[in-house]
Protein backbone atom coordinates (compact mmCIF):
# COMPACT_ATOMS: atom_id res chain seq x y z
CA UNK A 1 0.00 0.00 0.00
CA UNK A 2 1.47 3.34 -1.05
CA UNK A 3 -0.20 6.38 0.42
CA UNK A 4 0.80 9.74 1.81
CA UNK A 5 -0.21 8.87 5.36
CA UNK A 6 1.48 8.46 8.70
CA UNK A 7 -0.44 5.36 9.79
CA UNK A 8 -3.79 3.75 9.03
CA UNK A 9 -4.97 4.77 12.51
CA UNK A 10 -3.99 8.39 11.98
CA UNK A 11 -5.52 9.05 8.58
CA UNK A 12 -8.71 10.81 9.64
CA UNK A 13 -7.26 12.90 12.49
CA UNK A 14 -4.22 13.93 10.45
CA UNK A 15 -6.36 15.01 7.52
CA UNK A 16 -8.66 16.92 9.86
CA UNK A 17 -5.64 18.73 11.27
CA UNK A 18 -4.69 19.68 7.72
CA UNK A 19 -8.19 20.94 6.97
CA UNK A 20 -8.26 22.97 10.16
CA UNK A 21 -4.91 24.52 9.35
CA UNK A 22 -5.78 25.25 5.73
CA UNK A 23 -9.30 26.62 6.15
CA UNK A 24 -9.41 28.49 9.44
CA UNK A 25 -11.28 31.28 7.65
CA UNK A 26 -14.15 28.93 6.82
CA UNK A 27 -14.34 26.26 9.46
CA UNK A 28 -13.06 24.82 12.71
CA UNK A 29 -12.47 21.21 13.68
CA UNK A 30 -13.51 19.76 17.03
CA UNK A 31 -12.12 16.41 18.13
CA UNK A 32 -13.70 13.57 20.14
CA UNK A 33 -16.22 13.49 18.72
CA UNK A 34 -14.75 14.68 15.43
CA UNK A 35 -16.80 17.34 13.69
CA UNK A 36 -16.10 20.10 11.19
CA UNK A 37 -18.09 23.22 11.95
CA UNK A 38 -18.65 26.36 9.95
CA UNK A 39 -17.12 29.51 11.40
CA UNK A 40 -19.82 31.54 13.12
CA UNK A 41 -22.15 28.59 13.77
CA UNK A 42 -24.80 28.45 15.09
CA UNK A 43 -26.48 31.22 13.10
CA UNK A 44 -29.52 32.46 14.92
CA UNK A 45 -32.77 31.74 13.12
CA UNK A 46 -31.11 29.80 10.30
CA UNK A 47 -31.84 26.13 9.73
CA UNK A 48 -28.67 24.16 10.41
CA UNK A 49 -27.63 21.74 7.68
CA UNK A 50 -25.32 18.88 8.55
CA UNK A 51 -24.12 15.79 6.83
CA UNK A 52 -21.57 13.10 7.45
CA UNK A 53 -20.34 9.74 6.42
CA UNK A 54 -17.24 7.65 6.31
CA UNK A 55 -13.98 9.38 5.43
CA UNK A 56 -12.28 8.60 2.14
CA UNK A 57 -14.73 10.57 -0.01
CA UNK A 58 -13.03 13.95 0.23
CA UNK A 59 -13.80 16.74 -0.38
CA UNK A 60 -17.22 15.38 0.64
CA UNK A 61 -18.41 16.28 3.28
CA UNK A 62 -15.90 18.40 5.20
CA UNK A 63 -14.93 20.33 2.07
CA UNK A 64 -18.51 21.52 1.75
CA UNK A 65 -18.68 23.23 5.13
CA UNK A 66 -19.09 26.96 4.80
CA UNK A 67 -21.42 29.69 3.71
CA UNK A 68 -24.26 28.49 1.54
CA UNK A 69 -23.68 24.79 2.03
CA UNK A 70 -23.11 22.73 5.20
CA UNK A 71 -22.99 24.07 8.73
CA UNK A 72 -21.18 20.97 9.92
CA UNK A 73 -19.86 17.65 8.74
CA UNK A 74 -19.22 14.43 10.65
CA UNK A 75 -16.31 12.38 9.34
CA UNK A 76 -16.33 8.70 10.29
CA UNK A 77 -13.44 6.29 10.03
CA UNK A 78 -12.51 5.50 6.44
CA UNK A 79 -15.62 4.10 4.71
CA UNK A 80 -17.37 3.78 8.07
CA UNK A 81 -20.42 5.76 9.04
CA UNK A 82 -19.73 8.24 11.82
CA UNK A 83 -21.12 7.50 15.27
CA UNK A 84 -24.23 9.15 16.77
CA UNK A 85 -22.08 11.19 19.18
CA UNK A 86 -20.70 13.08 16.21
CA UNK A 87 -24.05 13.88 14.65
CA UNK A 88 -25.41 14.88 18.04
CA UNK A 89 -22.49 17.21 18.68
CA UNK A 90 -22.80 18.68 15.18
CA UNK A 91 -26.54 19.14 15.57
CA UNK A 92 -26.03 21.03 18.80
CA UNK A 93 -23.19 23.08 17.32
CA UNK A 94 -25.31 24.36 14.43
CA UNK A 95 -28.76 24.63 15.95
CA UNK A 96 -29.74 28.28 15.71
CA UNK A 97 -33.26 27.62 16.94
CA UNK A 98 -34.80 26.90 13.54
CA UNK A 99 -34.07 23.19 13.53
CA UNK A 100 -31.45 21.07 11.84
CA UNK A 101 -31.54 19.04 8.63
CA UNK A 102 -29.58 15.79 8.55
CA UNK A 103 -28.43 14.81 5.06
CA UNK A 104 -27.86 11.07 5.12
CA UNK A 105 -26.67 8.83 2.33
CA UNK A 106 -28.65 5.62 2.16
CA UNK A 107 -26.37 3.03 3.67
CA UNK A 108 -27.55 0.83 6.52
CA UNK A 109 -24.82 2.11 8.81
CA UNK A 110 -25.33 5.76 8.04
CA UNK A 111 -29.08 5.54 8.37
CA UNK A 112 -28.90 3.77 11.74
CA UNK A 113 -26.25 6.03 13.24
CA UNK A 114 -28.05 9.18 12.11
CA UNK A 115 -31.30 7.73 13.43
CA UNK A 116 -29.80 7.24 16.87
CA UNK A 117 -28.41 10.77 16.78
CA UNK A 118 -31.78 12.18 15.80
CA UNK A 119 -33.39 10.37 18.71
CA UNK A 120 -30.81 11.85 21.06
CA UNK A 121 -31.20 15.35 19.58
CA UNK A 122 -34.98 15.15 19.87
CA UNK A 123 -34.55 14.17 23.50
CA UNK A 124 -32.61 17.39 23.95
CA UNK A 125 -35.39 19.37 22.32
CA UNK A 126 -33.80 20.08 18.96
CA UNK A 127 -36.05 19.74 15.95
CA UNK A 128 -34.42 17.47 13.41
CA UNK A 129 -35.53 16.66 9.87
CA UNK A 130 -33.86 14.01 7.76
CA UNK A 131 -33.35 13.49 4.06
CA UNK A 132 -31.89 10.24 2.83
CA UNK A 133 -30.25 10.35 -0.61
CA UNK A 134 -30.64 7.23 -2.74
CA UNK A 135 -29.73 8.08 -6.30
CA UNK A 136 -27.58 5.17 -7.45
CA UNK A 137 -29.34 3.39 -10.29
CA UNK A 138 -26.75 0.62 -10.22
CA UNK A 139 -28.62 -0.75 -7.23
CA UNK A 140 -32.10 -2.16 -7.55
CA UNK A 141 -34.61 -0.40 -5.39
CA UNK A 142 -37.19 -2.42 -3.51
CA UNK A 143 -39.15 -2.30 -0.31
CA UNK A 144 -37.51 -5.53 0.77
CA UNK A 145 -33.87 -4.54 0.36
CA UNK A 146 -31.55 -1.88 1.70
CA UNK A 147 -32.52 0.13 -1.39
CA UNK A 148 -30.43 2.33 -3.65
CA UNK A 149 -27.21 3.89 -2.35
CA UNK A 150 -26.76 7.62 -1.92
CA UNK A 151 -23.93 8.89 -4.12
CA UNK A 152 -23.36 11.92 -6.37
CA UNK A 153 -26.70 13.59 -5.77
CA UNK A 154 -25.57 14.15 -2.19
CA UNK A 155 -23.03 16.76 -3.32
CA UNK A 156 -25.51 18.67 -5.44
CA UNK A 157 -28.19 18.41 -2.78
CA UNK A 158 -25.90 19.79 -0.10
CA UNK A 159 -25.20 22.81 -2.30
CA UNK A 160 -28.81 23.47 -3.23
CA UNK A 161 -30.25 22.86 0.20
CA UNK A 162 -27.47 24.83 1.84
CA UNK A 163 -28.50 27.80 -0.28
CA UNK A 164 -32.12 27.40 0.78
CA UNK A 165 -31.13 27.39 4.44
CA UNK A 166 -28.84 30.35 3.87
CA UNK A 167 -31.63 32.50 2.45
CA UNK A 168 -33.71 31.73 5.54
CA UNK A 169 -36.07 28.95 4.46
CA UNK A 170 -37.83 27.05 7.24
CA UNK A 171 -36.89 23.50 8.17
CA UNK A 172 -40.01 22.21 6.47
CA UNK A 173 -39.18 24.10 3.31
CA UNK A 174 -35.53 23.04 3.37
CA UNK A 175 -36.60 19.43 3.76
CA UNK A 176 -39.06 19.76 0.87
CA UNK A 177 -36.34 21.08 -1.39
CA UNK A 178 -33.95 18.35 -0.26
CA UNK A 179 -36.48 15.69 -1.13
CA UNK A 180 -37.11 17.30 -4.48
CA UNK A 181 -33.42 17.28 -5.39
CA UNK A 182 -33.12 13.66 -4.35
CA UNK A 183 -36.17 12.60 -6.29
CA UNK A 184 -34.98 14.55 -9.35
CA UNK A 185 -31.50 13.04 -9.35
CA UNK A 186 -29.90 9.78 -10.46
CA UNK A 187 -26.30 8.55 -10.60
CA UNK A 188 -24.14 5.69 -11.76
CA UNK A 189 -20.42 5.00 -11.43
CA UNK A 190 -17.64 2.79 -12.73
CA UNK A 191 -14.11 1.93 -11.65
CA UNK A 192 -10.91 1.27 -13.55
CA UNK A 193 -9.06 0.26 -10.39
CA UNK A 194 -9.89 -0.68 -6.83
CA UNK A 195 -9.04 1.46 -3.87
CA UNK A 196 -7.06 0.34 -0.84
CA UNK A 197 -8.59 0.90 2.59
CA UNK A 198 -5.65 1.98 4.82
CA UNK A 199 -6.51 -0.53 7.52
CA UNK A 200 -6.87 -3.37 5.04
CA UNK A 201 -3.56 -2.56 3.37
CA UNK A 202 -4.44 -4.14 0.05
CA UNK A 203 -6.92 -3.43 -2.74
CA UNK A 204 -10.51 -4.26 -1.85
CA UNK A 205 -10.87 -6.08 -5.16
CA UNK A 206 -8.56 -7.04 -7.99
CA UNK A 207 -9.27 -5.96 -11.55
CA UNK A 208 -7.43 -7.41 -14.51
CA UNK A 209 -5.24 -5.30 -16.78
CA UNK A 210 -8.13 -5.01 -19.15
CA UNK A 211 -11.16 -4.95 -16.89
CA UNK A 212 -13.49 -2.42 -15.37
CA UNK A 213 -16.30 -2.59 -12.83
CA UNK A 214 -19.63 -1.08 -13.75
CA UNK A 215 -22.09 0.07 -11.11
CA UNK A 216 -19.49 0.65 -8.45
CA UNK A 217 -20.29 2.49 -5.24
CA UNK A 218 -18.01 4.84 -3.33
CA UNK A 219 -16.69 2.39 -0.75
CA UNK A 220 -14.77 0.03 -2.97
CA UNK A 221 -17.73 -2.32 -2.87
CA UNK A 222 -17.53 -4.44 -5.98
CA UNK A 223 -19.95 -3.27 -8.67
CA UNK A 224 -22.76 -5.03 -10.44
CA UNK A 225 -20.69 -6.44 -13.26
CA UNK A 226 -17.19 -6.69 -14.55
CA UNK A 227 -16.47 -6.05 -18.22
CA UNK A 228 -13.62 -5.53 -20.59
CA UNK A 229 -12.58 -1.93 -20.68
CA UNK A 230 -14.09 0.20 -23.44
CA UNK A 231 -13.54 3.67 -24.81
CA UNK A 232 -14.81 6.79 -23.04
CA UNK A 233 -17.78 7.16 -25.37
CA UNK A 234 -19.02 3.63 -24.65
CA UNK A 235 -18.40 3.92 -20.92
CA UNK A 236 -20.31 7.19 -20.79
CA UNK A 237 -23.17 5.53 -22.65
CA UNK A 238 -23.12 2.62 -20.18
CA UNK A 239 -23.48 5.04 -17.29
CA UNK A 240 -25.85 7.55 -18.84
CA UNK A 241 -28.42 5.17 -20.30
CA UNK A 242 -29.66 3.59 -17.06
CA UNK A 243 -29.77 7.06 -15.47
CA UNK A 244 -31.79 8.52 -18.29
CA UNK A 245 -34.15 5.57 -18.38
CA UNK A 246 -34.75 5.44 -14.66
CA UNK A 247 -36.33 8.79 -13.85
CA UNK A 248 -37.09 9.10 -16.80
CA UNK A 249 -35.48 12.23 -18.13
CA UNK A 250 -37.21 13.61 -21.19
CA UNK A 251 -36.59 15.72 -24.22
CA UNK A 252 -36.95 19.35 -23.23
CA UNK A 253 -35.62 18.79 -19.71
CA UNK A 254 -32.98 21.04 -18.26
CA UNK A 255 -30.41 19.23 -16.14
CA UNK A 256 -27.49 19.81 -13.87
CA UNK A 257 -24.85 17.39 -15.18
CA UNK A 258 -22.15 16.26 -12.79
CA UNK A 259 -19.16 14.26 -13.97
CA UNK A 260 -17.28 13.14 -10.90
CA UNK A 261 -13.84 11.62 -10.50
CA UNK A 262 -13.38 8.87 -7.93
CA UNK A 263 -10.04 10.14 -6.60
CA UNK A 264 -7.42 8.62 -8.88
CA UNK A 265 -8.73 9.89 -12.20
CA UNK A 266 -7.29 13.15 -13.49
CA UNK A 267 -9.32 16.10 -14.68
CA UNK A 268 -8.35 15.61 -18.34
CA UNK A 269 -10.25 12.30 -18.42
CA UNK A 270 -13.28 13.79 -16.70
CA UNK A 271 -13.54 16.41 -19.43
CA UNK A 272 -13.47 13.66 -22.05
CA UNK A 273 -16.37 11.93 -20.30
CA UNK A 274 -18.19 15.24 -20.00
CA UNK A 275 -17.81 15.82 -23.72
CA UNK A 276 -19.36 12.41 -24.44
CA UNK A 277 -22.16 13.03 -21.95
CA UNK A 278 -22.98 16.36 -23.57
CA UNK A 279 -23.33 14.60 -26.93
CA UNK A 280 -25.62 11.91 -25.51
CA UNK A 281 -27.87 14.46 -23.81
CA UNK A 282 -28.01 16.63 -26.89
CA UNK A 283 -29.18 13.64 -28.92
CA UNK A 284 -32.00 13.14 -26.44
CA UNK A 285 -32.99 16.78 -26.53
CA UNK A 286 -31.93 17.37 -22.94
CA UNK A 287 -30.20 20.66 -22.17
CA UNK A 288 -27.33 20.82 -19.71
CA UNK A 289 -28.04 24.17 -18.15
CA UNK A 290 -25.53 23.77 -15.30
CA UNK A 291 -22.59 21.45 -14.80
CA UNK A 292 -19.90 20.35 -12.41
CA UNK A 293 -16.80 18.46 -13.55
CA UNK A 294 -14.30 17.36 -10.94
CA UNK A 295 -13.56 14.98 -8.08
CA UNK A 296 -16.04 15.83 -5.35
CA UNK A 297 -17.26 12.48 -4.03
CA UNK A 298 -14.40 10.07 -4.13
CA UNK A 299 -13.44 6.60 -3.10
CA UNK A 300 -9.89 7.09 -1.83
CA UNK A 301 -7.51 6.69 -4.79
CA UNK A 302 -9.88 4.71 -6.97
CA UNK A 303 -9.65 5.46 -10.70
CA UNK A 304 -13.01 5.83 -12.33
CA UNK A 305 -15.92 8.20 -12.58
CA UNK A 306 -19.56 8.64 -11.90
CA UNK A 307 -22.25 10.59 -13.65
CA UNK A 308 -25.10 12.34 -11.87
CA UNK A 309 -28.01 14.13 -13.47
CA UNK A 310 -30.49 16.29 -11.60
CA UNK A 311 -33.52 17.68 -13.36
CA UNK A 312 -33.58 21.43 -12.81
CA UNK A 313 -36.44 23.85 -12.51
CA UNK A 314 -36.22 27.58 -11.75
CA UNK A 315 -36.20 27.04 -8.01
CA UNK A 316 -33.33 24.56 -8.05
CA UNK A 317 -31.36 26.54 -10.64
CA UNK A 318 -31.55 29.68 -8.56
CA UNK A 319 -30.39 27.83 -5.46
CA UNK A 320 -27.55 26.18 -7.40
CA UNK A 321 -26.40 29.61 -8.60
CA UNK A 322 -26.54 31.17 -5.14
CA UNK A 323 -23.24 32.09 -3.51
CA UNK A 324 -21.22 29.33 -1.87
CA UNK A 325 -17.94 29.61 -0.03
CA UNK A 326 -16.45 26.33 1.11
CA UNK A 327 -13.04 24.72 0.66
CA UNK A 328 -14.22 22.73 -2.36
CA UNK A 329 -17.01 24.76 -3.95
CA UNK A 330 -16.85 28.48 -4.20
CA UNK A 331 -18.65 30.98 -6.34
CA UNK A 332 -20.79 34.06 -6.25
CA UNK A 333 -18.61 35.80 -3.66
Amino acid at each position, binding site marked *: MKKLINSPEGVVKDALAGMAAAHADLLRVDYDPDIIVRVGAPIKGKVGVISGGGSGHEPMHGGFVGLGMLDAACPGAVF*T*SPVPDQMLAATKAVDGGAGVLHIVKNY*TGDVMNFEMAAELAAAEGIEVAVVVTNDDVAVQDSLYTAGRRGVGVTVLLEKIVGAAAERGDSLLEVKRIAEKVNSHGRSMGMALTSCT*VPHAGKPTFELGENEMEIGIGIHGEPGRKRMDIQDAASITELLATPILDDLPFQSGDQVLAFVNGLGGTPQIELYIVYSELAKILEQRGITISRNLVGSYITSLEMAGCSITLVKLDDELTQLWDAPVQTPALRWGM
Partner: protein
Amino acid sequence: MQIAADTVIRFIEGVAARLKQHRDELTQLDSAIGDADHGANLDRGFTAVLAKLPSVADKDIGTILKTTGMTLVSTVGGASGPLYGTAYMRAGTALVDRFEMNEHDLVLALEAALEGIQARGKAKRGEKTMIDAIAPGIDALKAALAAGSEPREAIRLGLAAVEGGVQDTIPLLATKGRASYLGERSIGHQDPGATSALFMAQVLVETLDTLS
Protein backbone atom coordinates in the same frame (compact mmCIF):
# COMPACT_ATOMS: atom_id res chain seq x y z
CA MET B 1 -25.14 -22.67 36.14
CA GLN B 2 -24.24 -19.46 37.86
CA ILE B 3 -22.60 -16.70 35.86
CA ALA B 4 -21.16 -13.85 37.89
CA ALA B 5 -20.38 -10.28 36.82
CA ASP B 6 -16.64 -10.92 36.66
CA THR B 7 -17.30 -13.76 34.22
CA VAL B 8 -19.09 -11.28 32.01
CA ILE B 9 -16.06 -9.01 32.23
CA ARG B 10 -13.83 -11.90 31.20
CA PHE B 11 -16.19 -12.68 28.33
CA ILE B 12 -15.93 -9.14 27.02
CA GLU B 13 -12.16 -9.11 27.39
CA GLY B 14 -12.10 -12.38 25.51
CA VAL B 15 -14.24 -11.00 22.72
CA ALA B 16 -11.93 -8.00 22.38
CA ALA B 17 -8.89 -10.26 22.13
CA ARG B 18 -10.54 -12.68 19.70
CA LEU B 19 -11.73 -9.92 17.38
CA LYS B 20 -8.32 -8.27 17.37
CA GLN B 21 -6.79 -11.63 16.48
CA HIS B 22 -9.25 -12.16 13.61
CA ARG B 23 -9.38 -8.55 12.50
CA ASP B 24 -7.82 -9.14 9.11
CA GLU B 25 -9.95 -12.20 8.47
CA LEU B 26 -13.12 -10.16 9.09
CA THR B 27 -11.81 -7.39 6.86
CA GLN B 28 -11.07 -9.93 4.15
CA LEU B 29 -14.63 -11.23 4.29
CA ASP B 30 -15.88 -7.65 4.17
CA SER B 31 -13.66 -6.92 1.14
CA ALA B 32 -15.41 -9.59 -0.87
CA ILE B 33 -18.95 -8.31 -0.37
CA GLY B 34 -18.55 -5.03 1.50
CA ASP B 35 -16.12 -2.24 2.13
CA ALA B 36 -13.23 -3.89 3.93
CA ASP B 37 -13.75 -2.34 7.35
CA HIS B 38 -15.61 -4.82 9.54
CA GLY B 39 -12.47 -6.05 11.31
CA ALA B 40 -11.14 -2.56 11.91
CA ASN B 41 -14.56 -1.38 13.07
CA LEU B 42 -15.02 -4.01 15.75
CA ASP B 43 -11.40 -3.88 16.84
CA ARG B 44 -11.66 -0.13 17.31
CA GLY B 45 -14.90 -0.55 19.27
CA PHE B 46 -13.78 -3.33 21.57
CA THR B 47 -10.44 -1.63 22.19
CA ALA B 48 -12.45 1.33 23.46
CA VAL B 49 -14.63 -1.02 25.51
CA LEU B 50 -11.52 -2.53 27.13
CA ALA B 51 -10.50 0.93 28.24
CA LYS B 52 -13.94 1.41 29.82
CA LEU B 53 -14.11 -1.92 31.64
CA PRO B 54 -12.15 -0.88 34.77
CA SER B 55 -14.80 1.76 35.47
CA VAL B 56 -17.51 -0.94 35.68
CA ALA B 57 -15.40 -3.69 37.25
CA ASP B 58 -17.48 -3.73 40.43
CA LYS B 59 -20.82 -3.00 38.77
CA ASP B 60 -23.76 -5.27 38.01
CA ILE B 61 -23.99 -7.28 34.79
CA GLY B 62 -26.57 -4.90 33.35
CA THR B 63 -24.27 -1.93 33.76
CA ILE B 64 -21.31 -3.81 32.31
CA LEU B 65 -23.26 -4.80 29.21
CA LYS B 66 -24.92 -1.43 28.76
CA THR B 67 -21.58 0.33 29.04
CA THR B 68 -20.19 -2.07 26.48
CA GLY B 69 -23.09 -1.35 24.13
CA MET B 70 -22.92 2.41 24.55
CA THR B 71 -19.19 2.37 23.95
CA LEU B 72 -19.68 0.34 20.79
CA VAL B 73 -22.31 2.78 19.56
CA SER B 74 -19.93 5.68 20.24
CA THR B 75 -16.85 4.18 18.62
CA VAL B 76 -17.70 1.65 15.93
CA GLY B 77 -19.94 3.42 13.46
CA GLY B 78 -20.96 1.67 10.25
CA ALA B 79 -23.73 -0.91 10.37
CA SER B 80 -22.16 -3.09 13.02
CA GLY B 81 -21.78 -0.27 15.56
CA PRO B 82 -25.47 0.47 16.11
CA LEU B 83 -26.35 -3.22 15.74
CA TYR B 84 -23.90 -4.73 18.21
CA GLY B 85 -24.21 -1.62 20.35
CA THR B 86 -27.96 -2.00 20.59
CA ALA B 87 -27.57 -5.73 21.17
CA TYR B 88 -25.31 -5.28 24.19
CA MET B 89 -27.40 -2.42 25.55
CA ARG B 90 -30.59 -4.47 25.30
CA ALA B 91 -28.93 -7.48 26.90
CA GLY B 92 -27.80 -5.17 29.68
CA THR B 93 -31.31 -3.83 30.15
CA ALA B 94 -32.53 -7.41 30.54
CA LEU B 95 -30.00 -7.96 33.33
CA VAL B 96 -30.21 -4.69 35.15
CA ASP B 97 -29.01 -4.75 38.79
CA ARG B 98 -28.05 -8.43 38.52
CA PHE B 99 -24.69 -9.59 39.87
CA GLU B 100 -25.35 -13.17 38.94
CA MET B 101 -27.42 -14.96 36.34
CA ASN B 102 -28.20 -18.47 35.19
CA GLU B 103 -28.68 -20.10 31.77
CA HIS B 104 -32.31 -18.93 31.54
CA ASP B 105 -31.26 -15.33 32.16
CA LEU B 106 -28.69 -15.84 29.43
CA VAL B 107 -31.40 -16.87 27.00
CA LEU B 108 -33.48 -13.83 27.89
CA ALA B 109 -30.49 -11.56 27.43
CA LEU B 110 -29.64 -13.11 24.07
CA GLU B 111 -33.23 -12.77 22.93
CA ALA B 112 -33.27 -9.15 23.97
CA ALA B 113 -30.05 -8.61 22.04
CA LEU B 114 -31.49 -10.18 18.90
CA GLU B 115 -34.67 -8.16 19.19
CA GLY B 116 -32.54 -5.05 19.45
CA ILE B 117 -30.63 -5.95 16.30
CA GLN B 118 -33.87 -6.55 14.46
CA ALA B 119 -35.51 -3.40 15.71
CA ARG B 120 -32.49 -1.33 14.63
CA GLY B 121 -31.64 -3.06 11.36
CA LYS B 122 -35.07 -4.15 10.16
CA ALA B 123 -33.67 -7.40 8.80
CA LYS B 124 -35.06 -10.88 9.26
CA ARG B 125 -33.51 -14.30 8.90
CA GLY B 126 -32.25 -15.31 5.49
CA GLU B 127 -31.03 -11.87 4.42
CA LYS B 128 -27.35 -12.77 4.89
CA THR B 129 -26.57 -10.86 8.07
CA MET B 130 -25.40 -11.49 11.61
CA ILE B 131 -28.98 -12.48 12.38
CA ASP B 132 -28.44 -15.69 10.44
CA ALA B 133 -25.77 -16.67 12.94
CA ILE B 134 -27.41 -15.44 16.12
CA ALA B 135 -31.01 -16.55 15.68
CA PRO B 136 -30.34 -20.26 15.02
CA GLY B 137 -27.97 -20.27 17.97
CA ILE B 138 -30.63 -18.96 20.36
CA ASP B 139 -33.18 -21.40 18.93
CA ALA B 140 -30.88 -24.36 19.45
CA LEU B 141 -29.93 -23.26 22.95
CA LYS B 142 -33.58 -22.87 23.94
CA ALA B 143 -34.60 -26.17 22.37
CA ALA B 144 -31.81 -28.03 24.15
CA LEU B 145 -32.68 -26.51 27.52
CA ALA B 146 -36.35 -27.31 26.97
CA ALA B 147 -35.40 -30.89 26.11
CA GLY B 148 -33.59 -31.10 29.44
CA SER B 149 -29.96 -30.83 28.30
CA GLU B 150 -27.31 -29.79 30.81
CA PRO B 151 -26.68 -26.01 30.46
CA ARG B 152 -23.14 -26.59 29.29
CA GLU B 153 -24.30 -29.09 26.70
CA ALA B 154 -27.13 -26.79 25.59
CA ILE B 155 -24.72 -23.93 25.13
CA ARG B 156 -22.45 -26.10 23.02
CA LEU B 157 -25.39 -27.08 20.85
CA GLY B 158 -26.17 -23.40 20.50
CA LEU B 159 -22.64 -22.74 19.31
CA ALA B 160 -22.90 -25.54 16.76
CA ALA B 161 -26.04 -23.90 15.41
CA VAL B 162 -24.25 -20.56 15.16
CA GLU B 163 -21.48 -22.27 13.21
CA GLY B 164 -24.06 -23.82 10.93
CA GLY B 165 -25.78 -20.47 10.52
CA VAL B 166 -22.55 -18.83 9.47
CA GLN B 167 -21.94 -21.54 6.87
CA ASP B 168 -25.50 -21.14 5.68
CA THR B 169 -24.91 -17.46 4.89
CA ILE B 170 -22.58 -18.48 2.06
CA PRO B 171 -25.21 -19.46 -0.52
CA LEU B 172 -27.59 -16.67 0.49
CA LEU B 173 -28.38 -13.66 -1.66
CA ALA B 174 -27.92 -10.55 0.48
CA THR B 175 -30.93 -8.26 0.68
CA LYS B 176 -29.84 -6.11 3.63
CA GLY B 177 -26.64 -4.24 4.37
CA ARG B 178 -23.91 -3.31 1.99
CA ALA B 179 -23.64 -6.78 0.45
CA SER B 180 -27.12 -6.31 -1.03
CA TYR B 181 -25.65 -3.87 -3.58
CA LEU B 182 -23.90 -6.79 -5.23
CA GLY B 183 -27.13 -8.58 -6.07
CA GLU B 184 -26.35 -12.07 -7.36
CA ARG B 185 -22.64 -11.49 -6.83
CA SER B 186 -23.17 -11.63 -3.07
CA ILE B 187 -23.88 -15.36 -3.38
CA GLY B 188 -20.98 -17.63 -2.47
CA HIS B 189 -19.45 -15.44 0.23
CA GLN B 190 -19.63 -15.80 4.01
CA ASP B 191 -21.14 -12.83 5.80
CA PRO B 192 -18.62 -10.88 7.89
CA GLY B 193 -21.14 -9.87 10.57
CA ALA B 194 -22.28 -13.46 11.00
CA THR B 195 -18.64 -14.41 11.37
CA SER B 196 -17.96 -11.83 14.08
CA ALA B 197 -21.06 -13.07 15.88
CA LEU B 198 -19.58 -16.58 15.75
CA PHE B 199 -16.37 -15.32 17.37
CA MET B 200 -18.43 -13.83 20.18
CA ALA B 201 -20.33 -17.10 20.61
CA GLN B 202 -17.08 -19.06 20.71
CA VAL B 203 -15.70 -16.82 23.42
CA LEU B 204 -18.95 -17.10 25.35
CA VAL B 205 -18.78 -20.90 25.34
CA GLU B 206 -15.10 -20.93 26.21
CA THR B 207 -15.63 -18.48 29.07
CA LEU B 208 -18.49 -20.48 30.50
CA ASP B 209 -16.44 -23.68 30.12
CA THR B 210 -13.92 -22.28 32.59
CA LEU B 211 -16.58 -22.05 35.29
CA SER B 212 -16.25 -24.79 37.83
